[in-house]
């Protein structure tokens, strides 16, 4: 019943953990899958948006280059004739004025010879006639109409490109423009890519040619080794990579096929995923609220379950401690209430059983076990109430006991008494007599009470004969030890008043009446080995008993003399077919001599 302090709340904790755990698990599973799908959806949405941004940027840049191309196109419309050189130079100067990105324009005639070179920085060259047919720009323009040279860096810093065009006619020659790609900065820096995002352009080999931070371009940054550029060569997917400023970014790209360039749009992850993080945060918050609710619910539920259990536990402890009247009050309307009710019923039963056991203890003191059992089972102590009944009383004691007790050691006295009581006790039980009392060596045994029996006197006599035989054997033994002890008995039959006497804590069952006195007087008159009975007893047993009249005895306290008989032996069996131990009593004279 004693529980360690730790284990006292174990059940409660177990329930809280279990309920909260199960509910939280469900919440997490749900929240998790939702968050995952949300993440996937949002991510692909963001990726799409960013790819669109990159494509829009690519379109802007290619249309910027396209516009330059268109402007150069005007200079190739006319066939090359010497007379129009001045006109062409004016056109070229107008072009340079119109398109700040072009730093110089070189034109060849139909035969691929340089006829004009107009520059912002260098002195113009007119009609040099230098053969340019081997120039890649001329070859490229003639074969592809439009030619874009690889990027080169002026002063190892500023990105430039040759853009060569040929006109619709065979003799319109080739126009080669030197384009300062720094100017794309004006386009790139205006491209919207979120608040913190950047759009930048990388050439075919991965060199940076446009970036809102122009100094990165001028430093001739090679990005071919970055995750973005390498991934872009393989697929169009949006990836997470390290941005140009070292932060993690979501990187989308779009190619500008004609130029072989790629436009990248990098948006820092925390900005790109801000809406995603927002929804995840909301999901997380809901999850948290859910878990808190689950814990509270688990607490309440477990309390409702555990508090009655604990009350039951206390009840069990109290009942176990002996308080059988304790009742466990639980009104939960469930199994626990039923359990409490059963427990209450059980403790009631226990109380009844204990009371009965106490009664039994009392009864056993003066009844043989089987009779005690019968009384116990048949209704209890009402049998012990005061009443008047016809009984047979048997009185017996030892002859010479007082002298023996005085002259012997207490140990010997106790041993002798022990053997004596043991021998008699067994027989009393056997014949179902009621041991009214015993005082020292004297015993009073009643028959026909508290349970009636059909033949009280018969039993009394048969028992007595058995007793005489048993004590006779014992007396032989005692004599060998030097103890001279004899045994005498008296049996009487008649009415007596019976009932419980005494006080709380010490009750005795007692018989009061002449029959008891008569039995006692007969006993005291009986010599060693004699069983003295009076007439009423004799009439009940004479059919099988051999007696010897001992004459009218004047007994103390009795007005009239009483005819007494010494039982010599019992013969055969009576109707009950019980004991058939023919005990031969010694002759009255012989017995008396040994007293």
């Amino acid at each position, binding site marked *: 019943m004693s529980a360690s302090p730790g284990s006292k709340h174990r059940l409660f904790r177990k329930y809280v953990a279990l309920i909260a755990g199960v509910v939280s698990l469900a919440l997490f599973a749900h929240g998790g899958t939702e968050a995952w799908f949300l993440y996937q959806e949002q991510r692909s949405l963001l990726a799409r948006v960013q790819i669109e941004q990159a494509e829009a940027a690519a379109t802007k840049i290619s249309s910027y280059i396209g516009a330059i191309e268109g402007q150069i196109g005007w200079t190739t419309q006319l066939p090359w004739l010497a007379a129009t050189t*001045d006109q062409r130079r004016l056109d070229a100067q107008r072009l340079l004025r119109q398109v700040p990105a072009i730093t110089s324009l070189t034109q060849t005639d139909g035969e691929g010879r340089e006829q004009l070179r107009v520059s912002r920085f260098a002195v113009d060259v007119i009609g040099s006639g230098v053969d340019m047919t081997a120039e890649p720009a001329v070859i490229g323009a003639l074969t592809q109409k439009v030619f874009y040279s690889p990027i080169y860096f002026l002063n*190892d*810093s500023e990105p430039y490109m040759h853009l060569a065009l040929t006109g619709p006619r065979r003799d319109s020659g080739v126009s080669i423009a030197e384009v300062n790609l720094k100017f794309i900065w004006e386009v790139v820096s205006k491209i919207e890519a979120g608040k913190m995002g950047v759009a930048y352009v990388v050439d075919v080999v991965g060199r940076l040619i446009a970036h809102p931070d122009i100094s990165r371009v001028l*430093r001739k940054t090679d990005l071919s080794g970055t995750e973005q550029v390498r991934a872009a060569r393989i697929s169009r997917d949006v990836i997470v990579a390290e941005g140009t400023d070292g932060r993690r970014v979501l990187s989308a790209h779009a190619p500008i096929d004609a130029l072989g360039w790629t436009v990248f749009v990098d948006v820092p992850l925390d900005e790109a995923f801000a809406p995603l993080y927002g929804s995840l945060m909301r999901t997380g918050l809901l999850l948290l609220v859910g878990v808190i609710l689950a814990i509270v619910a688990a607490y309440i539920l477990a309390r409702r379950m555990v508090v009655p259990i604990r009350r039951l536990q206390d009840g069990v402890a109290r009942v176990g401690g002996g308080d059988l009247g304790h009742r466990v009050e639980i009104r939960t309307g469930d199994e626990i209430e039923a359990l409490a009710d059963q427990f209450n019923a059980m403790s009631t039963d226990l109380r009844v059983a204990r009371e009965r056991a106490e009664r039994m203890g009392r009864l056993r003191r003066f009844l043989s076990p089987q009779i005690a059992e019968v009384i116990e089972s048949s209704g209890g102590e009402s049998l012990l109430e005061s009443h008047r009944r016809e009984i047979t009383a048997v009185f017996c004691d030892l002859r010479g006991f007082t002298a023996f007790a005085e002259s012997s050691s207490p140990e010997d006295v106790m041993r002798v008494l022990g053997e004596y009581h043991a021998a008699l006790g067994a027989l009393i039980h056997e014949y179902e007599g009621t041991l009214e009392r015993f005082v020292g060596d004297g015993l009073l045994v009643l028959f026909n009470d508290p349970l009636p029996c059909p033949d009280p006197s018969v039993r009394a006599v048969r028992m007595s004969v058995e007793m005489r035989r048993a004590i006779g054997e014992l007396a032989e033994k005692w004599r060998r030890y030097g103890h001279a002890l004899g045994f005498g008995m008296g049996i009487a039959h008649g009415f007596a008043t019976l009932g419980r006497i005494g006080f709380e804590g010490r009750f005795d069952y007692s018989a009061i009446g002449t029959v008891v006195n008569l039995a006692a007087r007969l006993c005291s008159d009986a010599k060693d080995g004699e069983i003295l009975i009076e007439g009423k007893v004799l009439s009940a047993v004479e059919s099988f008993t051999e007696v010897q009249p001992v004459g009218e005895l004047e007994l103390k306290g009795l007005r009239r003399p009483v005819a007494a008989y010494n039982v010599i032996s019992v013969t055969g069996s009576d109707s009950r077919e019980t004991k058939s131990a023919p005990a031969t009593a010694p002759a009255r004279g012989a017995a008396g001599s040994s007293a």
Partner: protein
Amino acid sequence: MIGRRAFINGTLCLVGTTFSARAQRPPVRIAWLSPTTSTDGTIFFQELLTGLRERGFVDQDTAAIQPFWGEDSPDRVARLVGEVIGSKPDVIVAQGSAALAVKQAKPDIPVVFGYSGDPVQAGLVDSFARPGGKMTGISYLTLQLVGKRMELLKEVLPQAKHVAVLANPQHPGDRAERKASEDGAAAVGLQIKYFEARTIPQQMEALAAIEKAGVDAAMMFPVQNIISNRRAIAEWAIRTKTPTVSGWAQFAEGGNLMSYGPNLLAATRRLAAFAEAILKGTSPAELPVERPTRVELVVNLKAARALGISIPPSVLIRADNVIE
């Protein structure tokens, strides 16, 4: 004495700025060092302030910007460098030849320059892409454009044969520029006569010499003190009917015939971007030197009329600014 007064004048306009600044945190300190007088240089200084303002500085709480004026005196510039460094600015913005003076002092302060010559040749930086030291800025492409100016002169005056070149030999790129002008002149069929002047009084003597030399036109190297002296040169040009060309728009705006060169105002404003990047922690060694993206032609038609020349359409078509 004059220098000090100008210096005080220059700083006075900022006193209000710095004093009204709430001293919650030390403001960013920027020093502007110009070799010119405040009169000639204020237009550029204002441009820098505009550029800084565009970038969120100069709102009185965030930046204290102090100008130092060299008053066209190289000696004074050399002295000012000490003062500039002593004022412990976060960044120095040095214009033109002042950058060279600052470089001599080797300060441990980042320097942004607007330099007319080749900064690699002048030893200001290691390379355009990676300056590598404490200095970076803008190179004004002057050297490249010398030939182009010869071409313009030839176009305006097809009969011209001789062109005077006025230079300042103190300018570190002078020799290269002289070579470039000879090449450019040869390309368009001109011959040059070289004149040099270190100071403005010497310039006046040189102008007299040019007048005597009997040239068809004169090209002035876009050196700080020549530009500063543009009005006197313009007067001389009109008086002697000598068409003049140089590199900075101020030159033509000041009454001379033409200028062909980068837009210095825009370039100076761009210096603010360098200052910003450096103040935000970028090392000047990692900030590439930029070159102006636009070159502009300014033609002064008033001067042309006074000189009795008509400007051909092939020149006018290119003009970004025509002064009527």
